[in-house]
């Protein structure tokens, strides 16, 4: 018996005994191999999702419907149904007010930040002496107005409010950060008393002016995004505008604004999310400092079964699960706001056709 190369076994007299199929190797198609590489690349993220982030989110959502009691050595979950949510809306003395104020402030500050950063980006995009230095200064708050420095500034601003006797209802979202009041409300009142505007408008205006530092310090990333957007507009368009005799004003409205409109959408959403995820935010401050404090006590109890004795006892709702509940309510409301904003703005966004 001899075996030849093509897997055919032949007997000595030359008759073919049998054919053997060639041995199959595990051979993936190119698409499959690329898919596998893709999975390998995102593997760390997937592992983290399954081992860390997934359980964290799950436990966080679980805390909305449970009362989380931390006792030595273990964490006990007692089912509370919708008690936490009910407490947040019905019994928390400040939650609703702080939400309303927080959203009001968002609605004022987000446009202010967008307009300011667009304006500054246009100016910083022009050639001038010291442009690099100005850009560096404008970008400084992105690195520095965060974390521990922000915490220290907020604490200082709060304690200064106490010292100067200013009324602080703890609900002014985003308004406390730098706490540098260059102009007092009085100055602005004097300035605007002859202008026939309502008191509420005056409050908005004075809030914006006195908290200019917050607007400025939260505009860094937005400014960068606008800057890069401005640089991607072809100079040929401006040149042809100039040749056709358009003024700078017309060029801005007819060319710059439409071309930059996708950036405005990106920036609005970025600003919204940045504002609501920052720890200096009034709603988050309320959630983590105000729940269960002397002025806002927790009185609601739920019947739970004590695992040690097996008896049913009444337990007060726990501060930590209440704060997580209020956070989730806030997240859901912000998500709705983000969807509304992006739908509204999509109508105005102009996308340049690609070749």
């Amino acid at each position: 018996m001899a075996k030849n190369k093509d897997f055919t076994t032949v007997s000595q007299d030359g008759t073919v005994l049998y054919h053997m199929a060639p041995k199959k190797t595990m051979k993936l198609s190119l698409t499959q191999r690329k898919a596998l590489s893709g999975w390998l690349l995102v593997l760390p993220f997937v592992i983290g999702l399954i081992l860390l982030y997934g359980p964290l989110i799950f436990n966080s959502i679980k805390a909305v419907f449970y009362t989380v009691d931390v006792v030595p050595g273990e964490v006990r979950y007692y089912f509370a149904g919708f008690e936490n949510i009910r407490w947040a809306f019905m019994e928390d003395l400040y939650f609703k007010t702080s939400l309303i104020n927080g959203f009001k402030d968002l609605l004022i500050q987000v446009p202010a930040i967008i307009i300011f950063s667009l304006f500054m980006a246009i100016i910083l995009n022009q050639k001038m002496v010291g442009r690099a230095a100005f850009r560096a200064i404008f970008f400084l708050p992105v690195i520095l107005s965060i974390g521990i420095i922000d915490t220290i500034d907020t604490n200082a601003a709060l304690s200064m409010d106490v010292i100067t006797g200013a009324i602080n209802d703890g609900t002014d979202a985003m308004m406390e950060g730098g706490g540098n009041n260059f102009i007092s409300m009085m100055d602005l009142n004097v300035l605007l008393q002859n202008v026939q505007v309502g008191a509420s408008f005056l409050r908005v205006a004075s809030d914006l002016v006195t908290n200019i530092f917050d607007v400025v310090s939260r505009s860094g990333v937005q400014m960068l995004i606008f800057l890069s957007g401005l640089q991607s507009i072809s100079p040929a368009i401006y040149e042809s505008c100039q040749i056709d005799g358009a003024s700078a004003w017309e060029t801005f409205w007819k060319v710059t604004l439409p071309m930059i409109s996708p950036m405005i959408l990106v920036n609005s959403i970025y600003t919204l999310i940045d504002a609501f995820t920052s720890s200096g935010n009034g709603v988050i401050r309320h959630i983590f400092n105000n729940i269960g404090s002397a002025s806002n006590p927790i009185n609601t109890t739920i019947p739970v079964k004590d695992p040690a004795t097996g008896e049913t006892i009444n337990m007060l709702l726990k501060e930590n699960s209440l704060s997580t509940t209020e956070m989730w309510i806030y997240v859901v409301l912000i998500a709705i706001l983000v969807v509304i904003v992006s739908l509204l703005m999509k109508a105005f966004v102009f996308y340049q056709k690609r070749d």
Partner: protein
Amino acid sequence: MDAPKIKKESKNKIRVDFERAPLWERLKGKYFSMRFVKNVLYKIFRLILLLGVSFVILYPYISKIADSFKSFPDFQDITVVYISRNPTIEQYKYIITENQYFRAMLNTFLLSASTALIQTLICALVGYGLAKFKFKGRNIIFAIVIVTMMLPQDILRLPMQNMFWRFDDQHLIGKLLDALGVTTSTIPGKMGIQLGSMNIFGLIPHFALSLTGFGFRNGLFIFLLRQFFTGVPDELEESAYMDGCTTFRTFFQIIIPLAVPMLITVFIFAFSWQWTDDFYINTFWMESYWTSNLSLPDNAKWFEYSFPLLSSGNFAGGGSAANVLGTIYSQGNTKDTGWDMYANAISGTSTILIALPLIIAFIFLQNKIVQGIERSGIVG
């Protein structure tokens, strides 16, 4: 107009006499036009605006620097605004000595540099995978990345405390630690890892989160890098594959060198945000966790870290430095007028000391940040 008159002619030079307007007329034409005036006014306006906004941005730092050289009596004296009457560097001195500034800086540097490096690498891998490979579930994973970007970190505070503080035998990582035999703590539960005199257990969650791309704002980094990699032409990788490169070799030899500006930007963000981070430090390094297993710690209660970090409470509240200064000015518990402002000034001085290394690095690197974002392809 006549033809120009030749005044003097030599082999190489020629001087021609033009009939031109007198100097005065020319200057008038140039500088007295509406256009020139408008231009000058605009430039002045622009300069004032930029200087003004820069002042607004820098004012907190200016006032903090001014306050940092004041002594306590300056705060009781109403006439002192910016310039101290008896300038002193005692605030710096006591923060550096009492709050272990240099040790904290070294620790913070090591922690920030290592986590930033890991985060940059992991986010680059994930971003590259999401940008260039088609596989089932890609869109879902990308959607999850976006969601992680949008959830505030505070929402995870409670589950993180429960997960990372109680690595006892019931938890996966606790079991793993147990199996590896790294439980050297005398505290109930498996919660301590000694390194010399330091308890470095709090490092584990930092690295666990960084290694899996769930550190602070890592969703943003993945998004930025994905956008960048999407802009890299496919032909580059295809030619690498043709030459027999594997996916990972292509990534490290072709893609990474291309992405250096973007990676530097991400690294700077990751580094500086870890440098100033207090949320994770707050969550992972609280004392009551180590000493008593009784209840969730009181946020106001900070401890002498066995592993001092810049963003620890010691710096936020002035810490031991404030106590020492309080003893010097015999403040004790009685708080005179001006003491709160002085305490704020001490915190402010801490801020300067925390921010100083970052600012120095930033001055050298700010161009890179702008470059990275400009090339990121966010712009489309």
